[in-house]
């Protein structure tokens, strides 16, 4: 709270820009624990969604829909049937099926160039030859001519093509998976705009909603530059990832990180995670994975860096992340100034309307 008034002094260090210790900035005494966070390394994510399930179980997050007509709420776009983060989805595994005509992939997209393998397109990936890998469609009852097992794919109408490709096409396929979560921003728009103080900065530098304070005004919802927090229809409160605030106090790691079988979700002190991420990035670049990049790692970005940051294999927007988010309150001093000047103008206009007295 100490920062609220410097915020209008023009220097505004705490509304944007790098901030080494958000907890102290929020009024915690100097001996609070170190800032913690997530480093989500999407290059090893297998899209198993264990994180989504573990999060729901630990945090007792209810079913995320009320539409009984669509019981399973299939999105129909990919294996991702969660769709996005929300009041009842605090982890969301994005699933991107990146298919492109054979030979058009570039190193930047993990494709194959000049015979040199880059990225995560394994050589001879089920190369999805159109026309069903040379098999002719057969009947399930017919035994394969050469004995052996029945190729179930070949039994599908298009001989295994199953709508994934045009008949004579050869395509490169790449799957991108990423477990998204609240970024626990250094400058959190949701927290800044919360009028009740329900959202607060914890001693761990994370951002948490106090459900017993939240009155469901909904201001945090459009103020998050990542579209994370949302109001739950059933109880009217705003909800999002707490980075398992209750577990942290007991020295446990968050449920999602615990459940992740590939260590794609790493939990720890933020400075250590950043060092680990930098090392991982260098390693991948060394292996020719030029498309690898860190997202939310830079403390100079528009939100002062994220507490939960990512290693991505494509542009952020491909994963549904904003490419260059800026916390809205960075411009708030200017907005207040504009509004105050306009208010003075409006008052003057009312007075001026009485100019000249009675006729």
């Amino acid at each position, binding site marked *: 709270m100490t920062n609220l008034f410097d915020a209008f002094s023009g220097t505004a260090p705490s509304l944007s*820009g790098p901030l080494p210790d958000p907890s102290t900035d929020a009024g915690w005494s100097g001996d609070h624990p170190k800032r913690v966070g997530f480093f989500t390394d999407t290059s090893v994510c297998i899209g198993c969604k264990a994180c989504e399930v573990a999060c729901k179980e630990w945090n007792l997050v209810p079913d995320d829909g009320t539409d009984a007509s669509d019981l399973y709420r299939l999105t129909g776009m990919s294996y991702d049937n969660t769709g996005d983060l929300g009041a009842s989805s605090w982890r969301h595994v994005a699933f991107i099926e990146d298919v492109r*005509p054979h030979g*058009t992939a570039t190193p930047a997209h993990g494709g194959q160039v000049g015979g040199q393998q880059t990225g995560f397109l394994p050589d001879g990936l089920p190369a999805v030859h159109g026309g069903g890998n040379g098999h002719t469609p057969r009947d399930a009852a017919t035994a394969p001519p050469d004995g052996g097992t029945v190729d179930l794919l070949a039994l599908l109408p298009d001989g295994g093509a199953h709508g994934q490709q045009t008949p004579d096409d050869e395509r490169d396929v790449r799957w991108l998976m990423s477990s998204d979560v609240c970024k626990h921003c250094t400058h959190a728009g949701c927290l800044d705009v919360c*009028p009740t103080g329900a959202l607060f900065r914890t001693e761990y530098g994370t951002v948490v909603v106090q459900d017993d304070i939240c*009155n469901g005004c909904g*201001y945090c919802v459009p103020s998050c530059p990542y579209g994370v927090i949302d109001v739950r229809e059933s109880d*009217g409160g705003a909800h999002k990832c707490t980075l398992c605030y209750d577990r942290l106090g007991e020295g446990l790691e968050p449920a999602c990180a615990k459940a992740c079988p590939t260590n794609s979700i790493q939990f720890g002190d933020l400075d250590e995670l950043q060092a680990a991420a930098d090392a991982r990035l260098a390693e991948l670049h060394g292996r020719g994975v030029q498309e690898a990049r860190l997202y939310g790692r830079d403390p100079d970005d528009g939100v002062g860096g994220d507490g939960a940051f990512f290693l991505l294999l494509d542009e952020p927007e491909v994963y*549904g992340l904003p490419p260059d988010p800026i916390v809205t309150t960075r411009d708030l001093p200017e907005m207040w100034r504009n509004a105050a000047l306009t*208010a003075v103008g409006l008052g003057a206009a009312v007075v001026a309307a009485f100019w000249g007295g009675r006729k």
Partner: protein
Amino acid sequence: MTGHDANTELPERFGHAEGRANDRGSEKRRGRGRKGEQLQVPEAEFRSYYGRPIIKAPVWKNPDVPLYLFLGGLAATSAGLGALGGATDRPTLRRTGRFAAAGGAIGGTVFLIHDLHRPARFLHMLRVFKPTSPLSVGTWILSPFATFAAATAAAEVAEPVLRRRGATGLARLLRRAGNASGAASAVIGPALGTYTAVLFSNTAVPTWHEAHRHLPIVFAGSAAAAGGGMGLVGASVRDNVPAARLAVAGAAVELAAGEVMERQLGLLGDVYQKGRAHTLMRASKACLAAGAVGTVLGRKKRWSAALSGLALMAGSALTRFGVFDAGIASANDPAHIVVPQRERLEQRRSTMDQDVAPPDRTFA
């Protein structure tokens, strides 16, 4: 067959940096039923996650929030008209202004509380004062304003009753108190009329955020048109000159600033060119123009003044609904997030290459 088509479409939705997929952004957007409207800004290419929204659209209720903005604006300028109307011996204007200020403030408060998803906890708003939260600041503007305005209106009602009953001393005291609280509400009023612009622009909604230089002026104009319009409806021809001036000036400012805003928004202004926001803004402009012309020509007739006032109030309300709708549409459009942010990144990258100051104030 259609199923196959849909599936083979899928990869294209992600777009590639090269090849025919380059135009997929525009393809997808055309698919959304633009009905061949001509836009000022060419469609930009962008990639996204299955074309899904990136930020969450406001969950604020419609019509609660637009109506709150309208009523707040109406109350904001009415308080001034009421107070100055009283000071300059315009009793009908004073009465109208005072009642409109109280009615607008109380009605607005009701809508604001009803908009909450947990209305029983509205008092939690008063736990803290946070300058970083326009809603908190707004609560602290609205609460005293509504208190003063309601007290003023109560004095306005009670004074003649007391006088009739012969309690002249008490009546005089009450009039003084009413004048004082009326003056207080008139002073707070302009803040109530403009803070709502900050409420909207201090979000990640691109069309609102990027309009943060224009919205206060649009909303101030809208508040003047509403309050002035109300004055024209309620005040006698003898008393309505200030209301007419304020209303016409407000309508002119609102029309001009709205136009400038839509233009300067560029790509982000496309939400004002299509869908419901477009219809609402068009209707708003028509009402404002008609009301302003009607006021200039017909102020001296009671009925035409009142009709013009109603048109101006309708125009003011429609602007609020239009801006609200435009924001929802903007938040739901991934292009509004990706395209400007990409541009910003590219620009920053190129200026960094040239080793000159980055365009984006704080960030290199």
